[in-house]
């Protein structure tokens, strides 16, 4: 199996371990990731907050590259990239004026049948049975809170998740690798997103609520599928701790890292050492040596 791979900027920076773990896990599962040549930023929040055309053109440029590489399916592990690629592709497909504008600007348009998939869909494509058959480490008893955040599931018209307000597809994957997903209340609440930079206090407030609820429901780990969510929940835990002292750390893992651990990959191979918050409590419980 082969899919196009659009890492996006975060996965080369703050979310490096997401890229690292995805590549390792994919190759073990027999999924070839063909990176888009000379891909560029999707525009993220900045583009669609400033210039609508730019917010469509930037993802379109990358989708045109996919077309030239004869890739009809592109995996975008970053939830924000996924969201932007799907939004742009849909707009160009359904709005002929937008299509014309992109044609004028870029001299080409993305393929109409391009399929953009997020990380959960990528694993679903690989297949739960396939993943389960590669499990080497027993994660029984590990309680995981699957956190979807905002951009992965919304807007429901574009993302077509099982249920945008109460999705369960990530939980299914967690079950497939032998761990136990917890029922909790904050799986699609916002972590504060890019306010992390300009309004840290918003992120501290929102992320604290998410972590607290996961703890309350007995989670040993929060599983994320977005580099922004990871940086807020992981990196900002120190700031939360500063304001609310005496808290225990909550490990925050990418879905790829968690599946990688189950498949017997070493924590360091998966980039767990790059986290701000120690993952030792989780590794100890799962009896995984560092």
């Amino acid at each position, binding site marked *: 199996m082969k899919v196009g791979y659009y890492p996006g900027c975060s996965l080369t920076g703050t979310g490096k371990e997401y890229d690292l773990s995805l590549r390792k896990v994919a190759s073990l599962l027999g999924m070839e990731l063909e990176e888009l040549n000379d891909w560029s930023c999707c525009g993220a929040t900045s583009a669609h907050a400033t210039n609508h055309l730019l917010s469509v053109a930037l993802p379109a440029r990358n989708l045109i590259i996919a077309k030239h590489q004869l890739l009809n399916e592109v995996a975008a592990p970053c939830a924000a990239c996924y969201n932007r690629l799907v939004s742009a592709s849909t707009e160009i497909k359904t709005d002929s004026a937008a299509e014309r504008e992109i044609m004028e600007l870029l001299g080409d348009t993305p393929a109409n049948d391009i399929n953009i998939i997020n990380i959960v869909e990528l694993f679903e494509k690989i297949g739960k049975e396939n993943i389960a058959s590669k499990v080497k480490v027993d994660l029984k008893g590990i309680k995981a809170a699957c956190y979807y955040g905002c951009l992965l599931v919304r807007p429901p*018209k574009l993302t077509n998740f099982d*249920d*945008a*307000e*109460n*999705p369960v597809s990530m939980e299914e994957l967690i079950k497939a690798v032998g761990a136990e997903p917890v029922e909790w*209340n*904050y799986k699609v609440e916002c972590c504060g997103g890019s306010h992390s930079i300009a309004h840290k206090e918003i992120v501290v407030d929102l992320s604290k609520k998410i972590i607290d609820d996961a703890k309350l429901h007995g989670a040993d780990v929060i599983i994320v599928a977005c580099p922004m969510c990871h940086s807020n929940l992981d990196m900002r835990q120190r700031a939360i701790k500063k304001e609310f002292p005496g808290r225990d750390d909550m490990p925050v893992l990418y879905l790829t890292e968690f599946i990688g651990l189950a498949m017997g990959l070493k924590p360091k191979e998966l980039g767990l050492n790059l986290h701000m918050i120690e993952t030792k409590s989780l590794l100890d419980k799962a009896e995984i040596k560092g």
Partner: protein
Amino acid sequence: MHEKTFRKACADSGLNPFLCEIANLREHCSWVHEDIVEGTKKAIDLVRIAVERVKRNVPLSPIQVPVTKKALVIGGGISGIQASLDIANAGFDVVLVEKQPSIGGHMSQLSETFPTLDCSQCILTPRMVEVYQHPRIKLLTYSEVENVEGFIGNFKVTIRKKARSIDESKCTGCGLCVQKCPIKKKAYNEFEEGLAFRPAVYVPFPQAVPNIPVIDRTVCTYYQTGKCQMCVKVCGREAIKFDQEDTLITEDIGAIVVATGYKLYTIDKKPDAQEIKGYGEYGYGKYKDVVDGLQFERIASASGPTSGEILRPSDNSVPKKIVFIQCVGSRDESKGFSYCSKICCMYTAKHAMLYKHKVHDGEAYVFYMDIRAGGKGYDEFVRRAIEEDNVKYIRGRVSRIYEENGKYIVKGEDTIAGMPVVIDADMVVLATAITAQPDAVKLAQTVGMSYDKYGFYNEVHPKLRPVEVSTAGVFLAGACQAPKDIPESVAMASAAASKSLVLFGSDLLEREPTVAKVNESICAGCFYCQKVCAYNAIERKEIKDRQGNVVKVIASVNSGLCQGCGTCNAVCPSKSVELVGFNDEQIYAQINALG
């Protein structure tokens, strides 16, 4: 509309009314064109066309068909009950068909009714009994309309009477079988909206009409394992009939009143319908104390599972704080339906009021978008809830409900204060949308009605013909046409009844003679016309020689069904179908008049 007037004028002067022709200069010319010179030219053309046409008109006389003076009422809720009683009291026979084991519909489930707070059962039950006792009403419960053939005044209806597994002629309604059924509390109780259970042999509710039980074969031990037969042992009348089968009944019917009502939208997960995205964030189906409007009716009802005490389904405790959320599914294009369900503003105010009357120290919050309380005494009712009963109304939507330490955390927005609101409620009531019955489309196809994209039946004219459908002789009553409250449903039912009575007022029915006619000598019997006819008006007719041998089979038009649309005329390869009053010669002459 005006054609009638002018035809009548013709008839008054001794001319055949069908020789009258109208050049519609008003709608087709003067109202739509601004250029007076060009408009006048067109007017001259239109007159010329009409003249050519009228020259070739022939005198016609209306087709007369007999009328069967018996009505079929489909649905035994308050609308169907009202329509049946009105028609029967006027002296005509009625066949009332109800899908459920008892008549009464949703109204029988309600606790009190707005805006007077009178007890729903108390005002409904006498009507139900009246239906049962009426000599002119034939009541068929646990039955469904399977097929409708024919046309206005002359329908032939097939009704499937489902097997109750009880001999209705023997059963006295003593209820021993119900009491002794070992499956006491296992089956889903439809009447209590899942808040209680019922045995396998059951009467839906104590006031059911008829008071004859039905055996639910999907849960009955006998049908699963062949054992038990407890009901047979206790029945002193030998009324239990395990081998009873569905029976088909045919009835000759003159008019049909469709009163099939609504279904409350269930919101637990993303429903099958593509346009609905669901409300996973409200946790309905996950949290026991998040209930819908009809469930709260049962909780508040004196005959309900809590005997009218307001108790949480999860632990039977008295909720001290209830949040009511309006417009769940209604007026929500992104997740639900774009229409307003019309009754929720009123019943939510009623719910909050009933709660406050029973739990004096309780707090009631209502999240609303707008308060739509148009109706006699309606706005006063809502004001009473706010001002006298101190129900707190918050304008805004709720984004999420989750459980925390036995409380339901309701997160919403107060759009007037511009602030987020968090309420730790003990119970949440969702005013979910009214939707069409799940099998509404199937019935529409059986009876021949058009419906909108939500499955509500379409009236012919939204203002001037609100109870008729496009198939003549079929009338609508109640919420099957659009969301409606009880007074409106009852008024509409009486309107549908009076429309039926208009029909029954004459022995013969006059129909427009402008229908299709087959030239039997040249029809080749290809039956293209039959394929394209939208009204099933084309029949097969055998032409026989003197010895009675079939020479050929040709098309024949049932003039009772034909609506004169001319589609058969257009597709006929041998040009052997002609639309009377619109024949080809006339149309060519009209075209030539333009040259």
